[in-house]
Structure formats: structure tokens, C-alpha cells
């Protein structure tokens, strides 16, 4: 902690912080590219604290350059990193002895874990659950489907990123390091997996449509296969389709486009052979 007695300590105002957060959650991926990914977006967000904290041209230049580094994370949960960086830049502006390279170290060491947990929750959970509601309404022709979906999802991204940004700013880097060194995140990830796997199971039964069109004639009676399958294990073919896709993606490491092709082939051949229908 700096001991610059006499000299007034520089502090970011609430307004400056809000501007930073807003720029981040609006423009993080505006110039998304393979070389730096969210690097330019990050720098854009940091222009606000940089303008506020540094006066000397040299400081501004090096700060801007610093934040153009490669960066990528899940933007909602990653807001926390931006918050922490604000706290670090503040410290850096007040404390001439601080080594500014620590700032980028923190950024790059946090972006991975935050992407991991953020992608699981935002894309794997929140999106899926809200989409389920939205599709359910929309398929019945109810316009509330997409409307509710957008409203609730935006509430989530805006609300959560706001909270995490200010948490990050307040707690600084120490708290995050605590978080990462404890196994809370591991446990949360495990719990999320349990929950999400149940949802995946439910989705595959409710969303994958696969029915057999097979018909046998046993003596005089006509036997349809699908009702028998339904009696034995409903949605068995849907589960089969899921495992086909999963097998190709995970075990055979095929691309989604390849799997798409396989599904087209299965669908067409199955229909032509009157096996599916």
C-alpha cells in the first residue's frame, strides 16, 4: 500500500466505473478477431480509467498499449476481471513502486477460469433454460416466447456483470486469488454438471423427434414398431440419436458440420427405407 502522505490519492468515481463497465459489456467483442480476440475491446473499456487516472502522456501511452494484449473470456463473468483491473490501475497510479506488469498477469491468469465457469453457466444453463421457456411459448404462436427470453437473458447479463464488476473492483486481486486457490469453483462446476446433465437428458427426450415407421405383418395382424417401442422405453430413438451425435463428437472427434452431414444422411436414408418417419 502506498504511503504518499500529503499527495492526494487518486480514486475512480462511480461514474467513471460505470462507464468502464458499460463499455465492456457493450463493445467487448466489437472488433473480435483471431489475433487478439477481445484485446481491443478490453483496451476500449480501459480508456475511461486511463483518462481518469493518468496525466502524463507517457503513462497514458503505456497503459493503452498494455491493454491491447490478447484477451478472451466470457464477457458476463469476465466483468469481474475488468473491475479488478480498475482497482489495480488505481493502485498503479498512486504507487510509483508498483510493477505494472502485474496487471496483465492478473488478467491472463483469470481469463481462463472465468471463461470456464461463465460458459458453463451462461451458455450451458441460463441460455438453455430460458430457450426452453421461449421455444415452448413460441411454438404455440405466442410472441411472449422471444420477448420473455430476451428480457430475462438481458436482465441476467446486465445484472450479473454489474454485480461482478463492482465486486471485482472492491475486492481487488487478493480475493480472487483466494477464490481460485480454494476449491469452491471446482465444487460449483461439479454441481453445475449434475444439474446440466439432467437438463441435457430432459432436452434430448423433449426436443429430438425420432420415430420408427416400421411395420411388420405377423400372420394376419399388422404390427407397428413405434407403439411397441413407446411401451418398452419411450423416446428410445431420440436417445439413440443423441448418443450417435455424442459418439461422433466426443469419441471420434468429428466436427459439428460432419455430424450434421451424418444426421442428414440418416434422416434421408431412414425415410427412403421407411425405417424412420
Amino acid at each position: 500500500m502506498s504511503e504518499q502522505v500529503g499527495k492526494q490519492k487518486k480514486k475512480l468515481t462511480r461514474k467513471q466505473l460505470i462507464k468502464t463497465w458499460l463499455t465492456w459489456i457493450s463493445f467487448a467483442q466489437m472488433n473480435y478477431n483471431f489475433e487478439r480476440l477481445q484485446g481491443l475491446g478490453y483496451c476500449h473499456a480501459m480508456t475511461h480509467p486511463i483518462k481518469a487516472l493518468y496525466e502524463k502522456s507517457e503513462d497514458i501511452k503505456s497503459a493503452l498499449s498494455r491493454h491491447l494484449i490478447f484477451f478472451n473470456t466470457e464477457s458476463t463473468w469476465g466483468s469481474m476481471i475488468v473491475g479488478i483491473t480498475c482497482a489495480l490501475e488505481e493502485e498503479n497510479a498512486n504507487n510509483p513502486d508498483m510493477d505494472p506488469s502485474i496487471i496483465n498477469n492478473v488478467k491472463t491468469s483469470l481469463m481462463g477460469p472465468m471463461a470456464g465457469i461463465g460458459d458453463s453457466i451462461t451458455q450451458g444453463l441460463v441460455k438453455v433454460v430460458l430457450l426452453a421457456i421461449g421455444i415452448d411459448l413460441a411454438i404455440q404462436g405466442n410472441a411472449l416466447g422471444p420477448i420473455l427470453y430476451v428480457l430475462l437473458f438481458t436482465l441476467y447479463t446486465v445484472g450479473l456483470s454489474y454485480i461482478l464488476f463492482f465486486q471485482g473492483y472492491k475486492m481487488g486481486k487478493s480475493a480472487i486469488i483466494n477464490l481460485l486457490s480454494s476449491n469452491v469453483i471446482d465444487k460449483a462446476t461439479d454441481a453445475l454438471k449434475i444439474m446440466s446433465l439432467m437438463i441435457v437428458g430432459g432436452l434430448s427426450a423433449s426436443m429430438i423427434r425420432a420415430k420408427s415407421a416400421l411395420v411388420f405383418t405377423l400372420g394376419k395382424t399388422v404390427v407397428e414398431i413405434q407403439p411397441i417401442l413407446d411401451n418398452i422405453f419411450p423416446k428410445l430413438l431420440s436417445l439413440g440419436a443423441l448418443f450417435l451425435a455424442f459418439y461422433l463428437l466426443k469419441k471420434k472427434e468429428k466436427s459439428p458440420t460432419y455430424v450434421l452431414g451424418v444426421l442428414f444422411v440418416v434422416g434421408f436414408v431412414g425415410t427412403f427405407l421407411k425405417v424412420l418417419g
Partner: protein
Amino acid sequence: MSLFFTAFLVALITWFVATAMPMFLRWSCYFGGPLVAGLVMGLIFGDVTYGLKVGATIQMAYFGLIAVGGALPSDLALAGYLGTALAMSVGLEPSAALTVAVPLGALGLLCFNARMTLNAVWVHKAETYAKEGNIRGVKAMNLFASQLFPILTYFIPSFITIYVGSQGLVKFLAYVPDVFVKALSVTGGLIPALGIGMLLSYLWKKEYAPFLFIGFILSAYLKINIIGIAVLGASAAIFFAFQKEKEVV
């Protein structure tokens, strides 16, 4: 609305969602592209109910799509906004619409990759501005320069698809035999397996596989909806997390 204007509007929206939309909205409007497109295109084409059904059906294929580390398995702006519009413009059945939209999403990766490659140019420009301490320059690179290439890679192909493609598709569909349409619909039912399979690959952990089957049974046998399953899943997850915690302590 003239076809020209419609094509213009669809292309504009597709471009906007793909690249210019603020990030906090992108999460919903991009990843839920088809669903949202259902409403938007429904309004543009003047048949909201039809639009909603087409959009919702296409969305099912992308339920479980996960974009991690900048890698996109399918472009949802094209699959969603352009796909829904194309399907509606030729009056496809919702279940068949899927098979039009999905290839668009796959092709869309070309547009996405082109932009991801080209946009690196502006970072280098921004680097020069940074060295000069030119904050406005840096901002401009992120906000405005970034939108130039996407007009090439998103707007123009989308415009052409609707303006030219839709008419071609209509003629083509006139010759398509019934069994082919049936096959499209069957395939449409299978495609959600891709998205859900991707989600499963991402989440897979052998020792939690039982929960996959529990969720399946809850839906297949008991018709519990996703919210209900999510609540049960959260209950199980929290309980077992607590149990473990105590073990450690």
C-alpha cells in the same frame, strides 16, 4: 414490401446481430437467433404466428450450441435471421425450415472466419494510436473500423440470398418429390441431437452420467418440463455438493 426492400432489411438485421450489436444483447439475440428471428421476421413478413413457429423449430437445432474460446460451431445470425427469412419467403413448413437454415449456419462459418481474420488489421492500427496516446483513435478502431469487413462478409451474402436465392428456391421446391419433403422433416427432428450432443460433450463427466438418464426419464416418462428438471437438478446438485463439503471438513 418490395423484395428488394425486404432483402435489404433482412441483410441489415443479420449483419447487425452478427457483429454490431452490443454484447449484453448479443447473448440473447445471437445465441437465441432463430427464436428472436421468428418474431422479427414474422413482423417483417406480416405473419407473426408462422414466423414464431419457424423460428422456434429452427432454434431447437441450436439448443445446446456452445461457443468456447472464440470457436464457433455454426453461425447463428445466418442460421437464425437469414434462415428464418429464407424459409418464410418460400413458405416452407416449420419442420422443413430447419434443413434450410442449418446449412446456412454451417456456411456462415465462412463469413465468420473471414471477418475474424480481416479484423486483426484494426488492432495493429489501434496499436499505433496507443503508442501516440490517441485514445479517440483506439476507440474508433473498436467501434467503427471493425464494422467495415462484416458488411462484405455478412450484409452482401445475405442480401443476395434473399433477393436471388428465394426465387430460385421456390422454383426448385416445385420439382421436389413428396418423399423428399418428408425426409427433410424427419431430418429436422434429428438435428437437435447435434446441439444437445455438443452440450453433452462439453459437460460430460463419466461419474455424473446417471443424471443424464434421470433427466431423460423425467421428461420421457413423466413429461416434466425443463424448468422442473432444472429445479430437481439444482436440488440434487446442491445437496450432493453440501454432502461432499462436509466430507472434506
